[in-house]
C-alpha cells in the first residue's frame, strides 16, 4: 500500500542511514533525507523543506540527555535534572512539529546488556530503569500537547537477542543497532505513517471452520466443534476469538465469509457456550457456498469499505490464494497450520494502527448492527419516504472544538465519496480555519431510533462581503440518502446568513472517488453553472426536510433541562423576555457560546416548551438580534448583570 508520504526527514544522534535504506527499499516513493549526524537540536531548529514534510526523531537517551549520560556512568545524578532536560527536548520537538505534517519520536530504552544498578535498578532516585521509565512518561506527557506528534515504542524495535548492538558497527560507523532492529523500525514507521494517513486496515473478514473454531460444523454440529473447554486446541481457538474481540473493541470491524450453511453457522454462534464472538460483534457476514472473493466484494460494498481496508483470514491456503489473486488490494496473510499460533500471527499484523481513536470508532460495530435493523425496516416499508420518517432521525450540530476535533479531522482525512473539496488537513489547521473571522465550521452528529451514529458530517462556509461560499461538505457514507444532506445544506445556509451572506456558491472539486457528491449537489435546489459550480441567489429556500429534526447546539429539551438542573438553576417565565436569575449565570455562560446558532423559532421549540415542562419559575434571558429573515433572527442567551443590563458578551454578539 502506498503511503503517499513523500518527504521524510530522519533526525538522530547516531548514524541512522540504515533506517533510511530500509524505508527507501520498502517504498521507493519516499524522498528520505537524513539530517546531519548528531546535530539533533540544530536540525530541530531548521525550517522544513516542504509544508508536507514528515520527520522521524530517533535519539539515544545517553546522547540527547546529558544528565542521563552521567547517570549511565553510575554517577549520582539528580533525577529531576534528567526530567528537566527531557522537557527541554520535548519543547524543541514541539516547536519543530509546528511546521511539519507529522513527527514521530522514538521512546528511549536502556541497552539490553546494561545492568545498571542490578537489583536496585527499579529503585526510585537510584535505578536507571526507574529513571528511564519516568523520562519516557515525561516525554509522552509533553508531546501529547501536539496532535501531530506521535511516540513510537523503541522496545518493539529492539526485540530480544537480535537487537544487541554489534560494537564493531558502532566504533566503525556510529551505527548502534543491528540490521534487524532497523528493519523492525522501518516497518513500525511505515505502519505509523499509514495510521496517520488513515490507510490502516479496518475490517477483518474471517472464515469459520478451523479458523474461529476447530472442525467442520456441517459434519459435527456446533456441539462437536473444538472451542474452549479442557482441550489445548479448543483453548487456542477461544483465545484467538478473544484477540479478535480486542481489536473490535478498538474499532476494527469483524465480518464472516464462510462456505457453510448459514442457519447452522449462526446457530453455532448463538448457542455455543464458549463462543467469545457473538452475532452482535460482526458488522456483517456472507455464509453460503459462493466464491469467497465475490462474497468479500459484496460484503465490503454493503459495509461501505474499500477493498484496501480488508484483511482476510482463512486456514485454507486454496481459499487464501483465490482471494489474493482475485482481490489484490485485500491483505491475505499467510496463516499458520497450528491453531496455537493463531494469536501470535494476528498480533504480528501491523496494519491496524490508528492515530486517533474516537467514540465513533469504538461504537462502530453497534452502529453496523443498527444499520442491519434499519435495512430490515426499509424492506418492510411501503416507500423510501415512509422508511425515512420511521427512522426518526435527529441531527445535533456543534461548533468545532477540542471535544470533537479528533473525529472531525478523521472525516476530513478519510472521507472520499461525499466530500465537496477533499481538503486533507491536520487538526491544528482545521481549528485555525474554523476560528478565523467570517468563517464557520459545523460538526453534525446523527441519531435515530436504532441508535447513535456519532459525528457523521462537517459543513463549513466563509463569507466575503455578502457572498457565501460552501467550502467543505463532508458526510459519512453511512447516512447518505437519509435527507441528512438536505439538512446539512440548511445548516450551511443558516451559517452563511449569520455571517452576513445573502447568496451561496459551492465548487465541486472532482477526485477519483467523490462522484456521489456531484450527484447529491445536482439534486439540491441549486443552479449549476460551468465547471460544476453550484449557485443559490437566495438562502431562503433551504429548509430542514420533514424526515429530519435538527437540534441546534443546545441539544434536546431534556439535555438542556439536565444541564440546568446540574447547575441548580431556577428559571422564571414571562410573556416576552425570559431572564436568567443571578444564581444561574453559570448555566447561561455554558449555553451562550452556542446560542448564536438559535433562531427565534428554534428558541420557541427548545426553551419555551422546556419552561412549561418544568412547570416552575425560571429565568432565561434572551434578546433578539438581526437576521435576514424574521424567523432567522438570532436569540442570545445572556446572564443577568447586577443592573439588569446585558453583559459585554451579549453586547458583542448583539452587534
Amino acid at each position, binding site marked *: 500500500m502506498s503511503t503517499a508520504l513523500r518527504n521524510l526527514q530522519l533526525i538522530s544522534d547516531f548514524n541512522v542511514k*540504515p533506517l533510511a535504506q*530500509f524505508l527507501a527499499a520498502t517504498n521507493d516513493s519516499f524522498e528520505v533525507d537524513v539530517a546531519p549526524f548528531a546535530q539533533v537540536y540544530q536540525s530541530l531548529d531548521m525550517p522544513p523543506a516542504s509544508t508536507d514534510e514528515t520527520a522521524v526523531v530517533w535519539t539515544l537517551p545517553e546522547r540527547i540527555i546529558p544528565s542521563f549520560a552521567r547517570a549511565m556512568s553510575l554517577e549520582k545524578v539528580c533525577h529531576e535534572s534528567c526530567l528537566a532536560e527531557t522537557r527541554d527536548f520535548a519543547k524543541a520537538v514541539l516547536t519543530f512539529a509546528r511546521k511539519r505534517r507529522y513527527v514521530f519520536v522514538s521512546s528511549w530504552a536502556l541497552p539490553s546488556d546494561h545492568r545498571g544498578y542490578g537489583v536496585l535498578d527499579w529503585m526510585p532516585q537510584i535505578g536507571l530503569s526507574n529513571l528511564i521509565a519516568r523520562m519516557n512518561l515525561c516525554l509522552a506527557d509533553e508531546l501529547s500537547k501536539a496532535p501531530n506528534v506521535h511516540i513510537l515504542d523503541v522496545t518493539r524495535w529492539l526485540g530480544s537477542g537480535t537487537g544487541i548492538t554489534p560494537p564493531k558497527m558502532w566504533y566503525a560507523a556510529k551505527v548502534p543497532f543491528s540490521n534487524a532492529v532497523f528493519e523492525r523500525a522501518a516497518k513500525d514507521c511505515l505502519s505509523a505513517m499509514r495510521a496517520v494517513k488513515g490507510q490502516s486496515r479496518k475490517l477483518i473478514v474471517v472464515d469459520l471452520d478451523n479458523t474461529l473454531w476447530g472442525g467442520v460444523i456441517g459434519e459435527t454440529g456446533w456441539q462437536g466443534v473444538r472451542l474452549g473447554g479442557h482441550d489445548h486446541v479448543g483453548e487456542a481457538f477461544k483465545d484467538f476469538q478473544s484477540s479478535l474481540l480486542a481489536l473490535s473493541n478498538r474499532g476494527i470491524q469483524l465480518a464472516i465469509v464462510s462456505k457453510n450453511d448459514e442457519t447452522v453457522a449462526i446457530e453455532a454462534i448463538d448457542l455455543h457456550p464458549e463462543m467469545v464472538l457473538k452475532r452482535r460483534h460482526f458488522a456483517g457476514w456472507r455464509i453460503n457456498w459462493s466464491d469467497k472473493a465475490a462474497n468479500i466484494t459484496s460484503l465490503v460494498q454493503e459495509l461501505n469499505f474499500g477493498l484496501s481496508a480488508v484483511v482476510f483470514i482463512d486456514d485454507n491456503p486454496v481459499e487464501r490464494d483465490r482471494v489474493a489473486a482475485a482481490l489484490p488490494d485485500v491483505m491475505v496473510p499467510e496463516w499458520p497450520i497450528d491453531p496455537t499460533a493463531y494469536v501470535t500471527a494476528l498480533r504480528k499484523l501491523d496494519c491496524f494502527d490508528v492515530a486517533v481513536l474516537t467514540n465513533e470508532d469504538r461504537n462502530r460495530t453497534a452502529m453496523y448492527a443498527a444499520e442491519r435493523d434499519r435495512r430490515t425496516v426499509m424492506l418492510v416499508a411501503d416507500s423510501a419516504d415512509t422508511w425515512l420518517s420511521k427512522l426518526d432521525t435527529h441531527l445535533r450540530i456543534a461548533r468545532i472544538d477540542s471535544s470533537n476535533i479528533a473525529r472531525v479531522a478523521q472525516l476530513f482525512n478519510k472521507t472520499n465519496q461525499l466530500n465537496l473539496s477533499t481538503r486533507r488537513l491536520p487538526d491544528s489547521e482545521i481549528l485555525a480555519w474554523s476560528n478565523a473571522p467570517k468563517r464557520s465550521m459545523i460538526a453534525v452528529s446523527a441519531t435515530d431510533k436504532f441508535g447513535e451514529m456519532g459525528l457523521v458530517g462537517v459543513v463549513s462556509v466563509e463569507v466575503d462581503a455578502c457572498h457565501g461560499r460552501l467550502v467543505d461538505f463532508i458526510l459519512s457514507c453511512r447516512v447518505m440518502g437519509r435527507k441528512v444532506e438536505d439538512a446539512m445544506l440548511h445548516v450551511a445556509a443558516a451559517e452563511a446568513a449569520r455571517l452576513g451572506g445573502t447568496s451561496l456558491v459551492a465548487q465541486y472539486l472532482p477526485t477519483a472517488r467523490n462522484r456521489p457528491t456531484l450527484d447529491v449537489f445536482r439534486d439540491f435546489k441549486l443552479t449549476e453553472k460551468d465547471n460544476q459550480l453550484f449557485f443559490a441567489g437566495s438562502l431562503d429556500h433551504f429548509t430542514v426536510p420533514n424526515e429530519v429534526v435538527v437540534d441546534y447546539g443546545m441539544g434536546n429539551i431534556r439535555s438542556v433541562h439536565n444541564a440546568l438542573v446540574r447547575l441548580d438553576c431556577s428559571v422564571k417565565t414571562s410573556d416576552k423576555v425570559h431572564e436568567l436569575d443571578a444564581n444561574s449565570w453559570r448555566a447561561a455562560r455554558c449555553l451562550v457560546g452556542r446560542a448564536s446558532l438559535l433562531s427565534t423559532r428554534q428558541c420557541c421549540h427548545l426553551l419555551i416548551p422546556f419552561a412549561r415542562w418544568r412547570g416552575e419559575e425560571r429565568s432565561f434571558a434572551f434578546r433578539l438580534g438581526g437576521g435576514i429573515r424574521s424567523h432567522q433572527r438570532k436569540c442570545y442567551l445572556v446572564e443577568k448583570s447586577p443592573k439588569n443590563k446585558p453583559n459585554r458578551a451579549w453586547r458583542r454578539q448583539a452587534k
Partner: protein
Amino acid sequence: MHYSIDQIIASIYLAIDEINKQSPAHAQLSKESTTILLGDGGILDSLGLINLIVCIEEKIVFEIGRQVILLDEESLMNPEGPYRSVGSLASWILSRIG
C-alpha cells in the same frame, strides 16, 4: 580444520541477502564471485561495505564456527585490495582462516 572456498562464498551470499533487504531493487548486489564491492563498478557506499563486512563476520561465526576479524581500515581505502570483489574477498578470508 579445512575450509573450502565454497563454504566461504556461501556465507558471503547469506550476508548479501541480508544487505539486499535494505537496498532498493535497482541497487541489489548479485550473488556472483565477480560482483564488485569496492572501486569502479561498485554500488555500495562506505557504510554499505562496512555493514557487509561485519555481516560476513557474523555469518562465518554462525555457519562455519570460526571467529574472524575482517574489517580493516586500510583495505577499505584500497580499491584493488581484498574488498574489490566477492571472489577476492572469499580468497582473502580463506587465507586468513585456512
